[in-house]
């Protein structure tokens, strides 16, 4: 395995371990408020390496638990987006003709509105979305690129010899798609999904930062940042640490996506 692939993969594993083991790794519960002494925001110390927020909650524990929420939202919504996008794209490319034309025009319309605006409108107008709603919203606004890429791949593959041969031998349509076409689309899917996760982590953080994503007191990287945004000057630790977490997670996924793109070389199937 190339070194370019190894580093981001190792980092991703670390993030996943943190996400899975947050309750055991954290010194305190994410929403625990001290039962004695003064409730105040204190700078990083031995007891609280990332400091505490104005409610006296341990920022390190919140960031660790936030890993779970932020990564969970990103992974689940990208899974939804990839599934929907693959189905839509495969249908469009495989059947072709008029259906393809109609679906592609629909895709043009969907792509024409900046995603952030759609997210803003829905999350603000429906007010405080619960987590499943947020996952669904991010998933259902994130599949357009996948659909377009899959459609292109399927379109290029459907007249290839091995596909024609499989059909000539009497293999059913679904089976041809599943067993002969889909395996060639994997590289495209893996790369777009990895880059999609990076993008979704940043988007969720942005939305939560604006108060429209994950709702307090639930800890996600974005919502912790949002808690500290009004007091960056005096309480820098509340915004700094979740920010570093976001940047390193996004960078990990982007680096992994880049490395995967070079290793798997998607799009080559069309050649």
């Amino acid at each position, binding site marked *: 395995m190339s070194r370019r692939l190894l580093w981001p993969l190792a980092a991703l594993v670390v993030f996943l371990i943190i996400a899975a083991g947050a309750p055991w790794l954290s010194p305190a519960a994410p929403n625990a408020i001290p039962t004695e002494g003064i409730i105040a925001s204190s700078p990083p110390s031995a007891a609280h390496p990332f400091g505490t927020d104005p409610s006296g909650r341990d920022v390190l524990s919140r960031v660790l638990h936030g890993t779970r929420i932020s990564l969970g939202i990103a992974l689940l919504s990208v899974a939804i987006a990839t599934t929907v996008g693959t189905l839509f794209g495969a249908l469009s490319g495989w059947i072709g003709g008029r259906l393809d034309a109609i679906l592609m*025009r629909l895709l*043009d*319309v969907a*792509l*024409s*509105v*900046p*995603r*952030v*605006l*759609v997210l*803003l*409108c*829905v999350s*603000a*107008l*429906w*007010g405080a979305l619960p987590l499943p709603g947020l996952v669904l919203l991010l998933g259902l606004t994130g599949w357009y690129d996948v659909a377009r890429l899959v459609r292109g791949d399927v379109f290029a593959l459907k007249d290839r010899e091995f596909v024609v041969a499989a059909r000539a031998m009497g293999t059913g349509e679904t089976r041809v798609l599943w067993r002969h076409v889909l395996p060639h689309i994997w590289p495209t899917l893996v790369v777009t999904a990895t880059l999609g996760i*990076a993008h979704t982590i*940043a988007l969720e*953080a*942005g939305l939560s*930062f*604006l108060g429209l994503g994950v709702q307090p007191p639930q800890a996600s990287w974005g919502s912790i*940042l949002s808690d500290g*945004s009004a007091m*960056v*000057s005096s309480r*820098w630790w509340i*915004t700094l640490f979740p*920010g570093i977490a*976001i*940047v390193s997670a*996004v*960078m990990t996924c*982007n*680096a992994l996506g*880049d490395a995967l793109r070079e290793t798997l070389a998607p799009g080559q199937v069309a050649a």
Partner: protein
Amino acid sequence: MLSRPKRAHSSRVVARLLQSLFVVWAAATAAFVLMRLAPGDPYTTRIDVPANERAQWSAQRGFDQPIPVQYVKWLRNLAVGDFGQSSYFKRPVLDVLRDVLPRTLLLMSLALTASVLLGMAIGAWQGTRVGTTGDSLLSTGSLLAYSVPEFWLGILLVQLFAQSLGWLPASGMVSTEYEYLPLSARIVDRLRHLVLPLTALTLLGTSLFARFQRSSMRDAWNEPFVQTARAKGLTERGVRWHAWRTALVPVVTMFGLMFPSLLGGAVFVESIFSWPGMGHTAVLAVNARDYNLAVAAVIVGSVMTVSGSLLADVLQRAVDPRTAA
């Protein structure tokens, strides 16, 4: 013989324009439906208004009518540029747009120009030196810049340059004493307010263009025609120019396609820096359930995206002789 391809070309342009118009209409309709489906109304956030007065307001604005009736009326108004009244700003949406849109366009066009120039320079430099230390460093740098969310970058910039160092203003477009300043000081004041939001947006754009230009330059650099050019005895500068011309095509296409992501970035950057543009206004609008203004924001976003992709087509034709019909 000459007139025939020309006609084909112009009819293609017309078809493309009609298609764009359709896309904008469909996006606007979708936005309208979405807003009317949303629970609550523009008065949900106003607890100070008595119920009967609220009903009267709703009736005045036609909110009590069936949705299809509202839609036809809305579309007819929209066709003549009437977006309705903004419930938040208490004046016509069109007036609000006239104020805020140029501010966003200013920010975006400056950021785009800077990003393209910087990104292409960096990427082209890297593309001919793939694998060297300089290339790896720049690649890591652009990966980092590409991975930093705009809003966090904004917070860092404010913290560093406005709060700690005090060099630049943290928010807004002009200072409070702007009205009392002489002309030269006014210009300086405006420029000083531009620096931080522009830096945040430009860093994002530059990393995008650099990443793109690097890979296209690297691909062009390995093409046989580069060898040929060198064999012909072209100077290294000339060879580079040759390769760059080819590597330009995907980057130029990218230029137009970047509009939506830049507008998305503007939403966060404008919110952080309280830059009173389209993005900041959209956030205010949705939070205040200002339907008309929110729909207008979606329409503006869609128009920008569509014009971006039209521009991408035009630019591609301009730089790539193969696609120029």
